[in-house]
């Protein structure tokens, strides 16, 4: 057990390290977890979330969500809101895979209709959606076209026939963060990214075919509002990927820049170099904010182009148009971003720079920024579990304001990749999963072993903790039947 003696229990699912826990902490650090989850947290969470509390301009609390685990700079699951006037922006609070995120897509097919063609479906998705280390996409473009992609995000996809207006409406920020300027990205970032539009990548990135079983619907009203109950045993598609090598290069470029100016130019001392940062309103801070938006937009466009491919595969196999198959998006959520949002601080609305790293925005009902159809329900939140156990659809709650309307993003790892590889064999895991009704295709058995369900926390406990903490409400549990993995 790694729990520090100074950790205080505030409520059933809120735990606090006081600002006196570590020198330099400006605010307390809060961790959302059940007693079981807090006891299982790795030591990195306590160390890193208290480090985040030392960053200039941080408001109220440094947070870590219940799927939290050891990250770099911020823990994975970390959340921090900065006063943009006096505070900093830190790439360590966003991550290298900028706007890694989840997308959930409906169909009107039932599991019974899909089962006979499941192998064909997964094989065709695997053939048509590029996966794996260094994979290149199917859209051939030049560097200049790519600069348009990163400035326009999903809007570029709409102009080029890869999206519908409804897709954009169902994407956080309409699939484009405004203010992304391609002059703030390096040539190297462009070279690393322009071949990768429409690629899944590897590691924990995947595309999954899931079933909404009637007994797994926890909130029928919300499930209905999100389009989940059109048919019993409805098949849905969930996928997870980000800004690929482009975003990784943007993060690396600015990590180096911030390390070179932070102390010398701005006199900021930090406890961990991964928390390298710059004042938000400094030239370097603003350049990174713009470059980060470029990577956010690349990730939105990436997921949109992948959706286009998925629709093609379904359409070919089931001999019907995507419209006829009811292939509408529920929503697209971003995990690794920083955004200017207005939140209530000491009774008045204030603009804050909210860093979310491995955590999801979860706006409650009525908040501006949600599409009209979700104004009453709150934002759909898509939580990807491990490939063996299942995933969740949640809804943002009006009680989430303290944590800047943020919730978990997945299960969270409990076992290192190296350990998982020692404990599991990819080929055996693939056979075992097939016996349990989950057909998996992968580029890498080694990579598959690293993603074994036992390497992750219990997803049911994670989402329950977010509900008890008033951050996000369970709508439905989604069970996998097919998966393609990089």
């Amino acid at each position, binding site marked *: 057990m790694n729990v520090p003696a100074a950790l205080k229990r505030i409520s059933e699912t809120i735990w606090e390290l006081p600002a006196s826990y570590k020198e330099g902490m400006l605010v307390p650090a809060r961790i959302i977890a059940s007693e079981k989850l807090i006891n299982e947290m790795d030591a990195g969470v306590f160390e890193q979330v208290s480090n985040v509390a030392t960053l200039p301009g941080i408001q109220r609390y440094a947070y870590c969500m219940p799927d939290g685990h050891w990250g770099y700079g911020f823990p994975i699951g970390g959340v921090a809101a900065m006063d943009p006037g006096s505070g900093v922006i830190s790439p360590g609070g966003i991550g290298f895979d900028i706007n890694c995120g989840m997308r959930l897509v409906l169909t009107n097919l039932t599991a019974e209709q899909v089962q006979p063609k499941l192998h064909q479906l997964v094989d065709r998705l695997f053939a048509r959606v590029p996966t794996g280390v260094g994979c290149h996409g199917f859209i051939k473009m030049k560097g200049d076209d790519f600069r348009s992609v990163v400035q326009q995000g999903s809007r570029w996809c709409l102009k080029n026939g890869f999206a519908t207006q409804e897709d954009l409406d169902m994407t956080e920020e309409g699939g484009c963060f405004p203010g992304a300027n391609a002059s703030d990205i390096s040539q190297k970032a462009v070279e690393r990214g322009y071949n990768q539009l429409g690629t899944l990548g590897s590691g924990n990135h995947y595309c999954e075919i899931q079933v909404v079983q009637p007994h797994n619907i926890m909130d029928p009203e919300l499930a209905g509002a999100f389009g989940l109950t059109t048919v019993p045993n409805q098949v849905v598609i969930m996928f997870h990927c980000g800004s690929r*090598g482009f975003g990784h290069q943007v993060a690396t470029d600015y990590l180096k820049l911030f390390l070179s100016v932070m102390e010398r130019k701005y006199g900021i001392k930090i406890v961990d170099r991964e928390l390298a940062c710059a004042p938000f309103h400094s030239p370097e801070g603003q350049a990174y904010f713009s470059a980060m938006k470029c990577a956010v937009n690349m990730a939105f466009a990436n997921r949109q182009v992948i959706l286009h491919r998925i629709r093609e595969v379904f359409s070919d196999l089931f001999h019907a148009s995507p419209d006829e198959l009811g292939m509408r998006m529920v929503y697209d959520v971003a995990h690794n971003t920083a955004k200017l949002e207005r939140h209530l601080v000491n009774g008045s609305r204030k603009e804050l720079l909210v860093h979310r790293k491995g955590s999801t925005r979860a706006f409650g009902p009525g908040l501006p920024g949600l599409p009209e159809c979700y104004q009453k329900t709150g934002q759909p939140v898509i939580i990807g579990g491990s490939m063996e156990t299942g995933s969740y659809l949640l809804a943002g709650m009006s009680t989430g304001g303290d944590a800047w309307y943020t919730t978990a993003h997945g299960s969270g790892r409990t076992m290192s990749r190296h350990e998982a590889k020692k404990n599991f064999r990819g080929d055996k895991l693939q056979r075992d999963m097939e016996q349990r009704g989950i057909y998996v295709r992968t580029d890498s058995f080694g990579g598959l072993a690293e993603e074994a369900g036992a390497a992750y926390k219990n997803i049911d406990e994670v989402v329950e903790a977010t509900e008890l903490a008033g951050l996000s409400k369970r709508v439905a549990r989604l069970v996998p039947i097919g998966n393609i993995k990089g």
Partner: protein
Amino acid sequence: MPFEYRSDIAHADVAFDAWAPTLEELFREAARATMEVMVENLAQVRPAQTLELKLEQENEEMLLFDFLNELIFYKDARRLILLPADIEISPSDNGLTVRATLSGEEITPTRHEMRTDVKAVTMLRYKVEQVPQGWRATVVLDV
């Protein structure tokens, strides 16, 4: 063993320690540890292409950081799995210069058993230090 993966300081990422009698050898070992995260059978990568690389940095630590990031860059930009064939590190006006001939080939899924993508070299617990036996590095890779 010239490098060893560590499970105690990273879960979702991959951490390793590398050590070698000389700085050049340390760079080779760290390159191998990084590429082996992505390619299971690194020995099967043929030296079909070579590429000259020259990088300058103020110290050993930032030089290795840039060097490993360069290998990661070529994996995405050109789908190349590269390792240093020749490598030389010398003092220069602004610190240190590494000159290397990188050799390798394009990712070929039929022959290369690919594993997990390395996204970046992180600064978490990152260290390059001189030790009595030579040089030692601790690196956490984001995967």
